[in-house]
């Protein structure tokens, strides 16, 4: 094998392939093969072992989990370099034909949670039918949100960032976290299944088009799709912050996650081109705010962090054991 073999997240796939293509075009190396397997699937392949048949790099839309790290160790994939490459904003958007939304995380939580506080200290099955029920300031529209299915990494992130954030803004639940963590989790992470939250597939283009067809619906998807479709859809403000390149990059937009790739150090030096690929990826012309990845919708890390990460990446610093 004389080309790189990259697997992993479908979210990182567009960026990874853009780098791979430029890498193939501008260096003597062959264009790497990039497979879109999903973060978990990528980890599974990546951690299967050392050897030509195993991937050199895996992309991830979330940090590597402890269990995955341990699986890697067990299979002899001892040293791994983690490279954080930027942010992916998760936006809640609707059709441009309708007005723009301004939601708080609490609104989002109350509208989409499976169980919500019943006001008497307990919980009840989510009774809200319209946004107005959730928050009298919101329009009197049926709650209809198209979002990723439970199997998707985007859904994980959404639950973690938006739902949990919203849920913790309710004092009663915040209390719960201390007393009954299990219950807290269930309350915060359960998404309603009565039809208000519509599990759409992972094809974000389809969600965009469905939003255009149905102006009263909201959709949850990645920032790049908003960026490419500004003429059709608009992102809702969350806690007063609109999803833009700047707000996500600065971290003021609350629903954004970091994305990564992981390098198998054992392959460095035996598979040609790994270091060069990392170099290309972490070059300013690629991942900088004016780089070609920004064009593809990647939101760059803040300058300082970018520099630090680039340095660590180029020197192939091994990652620590993750906390969870």
């Amino acid at each position, binding site marked *: 094998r004389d*080309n790189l073999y990259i697997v992993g997240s479908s979210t990182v796939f567009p960026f990874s392939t853009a780098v791979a293509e430029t890498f193939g075009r501008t260096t003597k190396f*062959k264009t790497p*093969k990039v*497979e*879109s397997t999903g973060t978990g699937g990528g980890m599974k392949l990546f951690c299967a072992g050392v050897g030509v048949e195993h991937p050199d790099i895996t992309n991830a839309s979330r940090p590597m989990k402890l269990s995955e790290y341990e699986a890697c160790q067990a299979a002899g994939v001892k040293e791994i370099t983690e490279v954080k490459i930027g942010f992916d904003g998760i936006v809640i958007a609707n059709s441009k034909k309708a007005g723009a939304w301004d939601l708080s995380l609490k609104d989002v939580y109350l509208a989409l949670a499976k169980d919500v506080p019943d006001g008497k200290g307990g919980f009840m099955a989510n009774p809200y039918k319209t946004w107005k029920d959730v928050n009298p300031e919101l329009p009197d529209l049926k709650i209809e949100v198209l979002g990723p299915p439970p199997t998707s990494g985007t859904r994980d992130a959404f639950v973690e960032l938006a739902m949990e954030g919203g849920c913790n803004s309710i004092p009663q639940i915040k209390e719960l976290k201390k007393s009954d963590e299990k219950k807290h989790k269930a309350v915060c992470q359960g998404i309603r299944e009565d039809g208000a939250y519509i599990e759409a597939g992972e094809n974000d283009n389809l969600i965009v088009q469905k939003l255009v067809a149905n102006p009263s619906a909201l959709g949850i998807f*990645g920032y*790049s799709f908003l960026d490419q*479709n*500004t*003429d059709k859809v608009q992102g809702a403000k969350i806690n007063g912050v609109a999803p833009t390149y700047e707000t996500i990059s600065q971290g003021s937009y609350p629903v954004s996650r970091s994305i990564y790739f992981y390098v198998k150090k054992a392959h460095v030096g035996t598979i040609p081109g790994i270091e060069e690929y990392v170099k290309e990826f972490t070059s300013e012309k690629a991942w900088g705010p004016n780089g070609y990845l920004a064009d593809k919708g990647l939101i760059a890390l803040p300058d300082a962090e970018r520099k630090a990460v680039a340095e660590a990446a180029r020197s192939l610093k091994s990652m620590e054991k993750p906390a969870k």
Partner: protein
Amino acid sequence: MNELTSNPPGRPRRTLDIVQASLKRRYARERRFRFLGATAVILGLTFVVLLFADIILKGYTAFQQTYIRLPIELAAESIDPDGTRDPETLAQADYMKLIREALQARFPDVTERNERRLLSSMISVGAADLLRQQVMDDPDLIGTTQEFWILAAADIDMLIKGHIDRKAAEADRRVKDQMIGWIERLEAEGRIAKRFNTIFFTHGNSREPELSGIAGALMGSFYTLLLTLVLSFPIGVGAALYLEEFAPKNRWTDLIEVNINNLAAVPSIVFGLLGLAVFITFFGVPRSTPLVAALVLTLMTLPTIIIASRAALKSVPPSIREAALGVGASPLQTQFHHVLPLAMPGMLTGTIIGMAQALGETAPLLMIGMIAFIVDIPKGFTDVATVLPVQIYLWADSPERGFVERTSAAIMVLLAFLFAMNLAAVLLRRRFERRW
């Protein structure tokens, strides 16, 4: 004399009267039935037309691509400083710079750095490669100034094709007002034109819509389906022949029959799992190759072919077999000389449908690494490759607007492939068809 001719009580009228009385009703039923049939066919054809119209309307624009005509000075000192015409040196030259300079020369008023960047972003990142190719093909161009058609960036292409609305507010589109101004100037000078999109048919995949082509996936599909056909047709027909004509009819063959019917209902992704476990992990067939895809698709299409072939064999009248056996043909000769030709139309139909399914299938390929970004065009069964439906799946999921029309164009290519593939089979089938 008897009940038929005399008129016994209970059946007082003659056949003619009864028939005549009910004929109107029967004919109404006949007409309804016929009408229903015609409606069904028309409905089916309407669906085809509808889907085709949908695809073609969305995708036909992808067959053209926007280019900008620019006079480019191919100065010898910047391309071939030593004058050796050594391909290596020619390849190393910075063609992008030449293009940028040419473009900037058209707009001398653009001086600010950011604006210049914006200006050069109108040109595709791949334009330099195309120019390099042109120069290397004809080194005599060096030293002259030529008008070249330079590939425009995808956003410009979208704008020219009207997929980006010029009248929308600036914030709502990816092409800034300034660029639109430049483009209008270029248009006024006749320097912008849509030309036939050869790149689409000659290149492999790319992240940039304007540089991406279907050739890689097409070749991938070609190798995959060729192998699938070569494997599944003989195996399917052979298995059907054995099970229908030679195997003793007992519980064991019943089991096989049910089993094959059941395999048809196994979700295709499970075949992917099987392929992953058996072919890749156990036998070490290389991942992401037409070879492993063909093996998986063969397993997936076999039930279709076997079931259709068995149905076709069942419909050959036994008297034909008897006739052949009666003159001393061996069972195998009977099958090959007489039964197979008569059953061939049905077998070919099964193959056509099975292959169509194999051509359009993505799910099992997900499991064996075909959902991949592969730029190079595969040259054999063991090269890494992707296939048309996967390419379509990937493009349909890409954020860039330029991939929308390409998705439809790729579907058109797939359908053309399907037509080409079926044509042979359909012609063959018509040769075998007869009523007896």
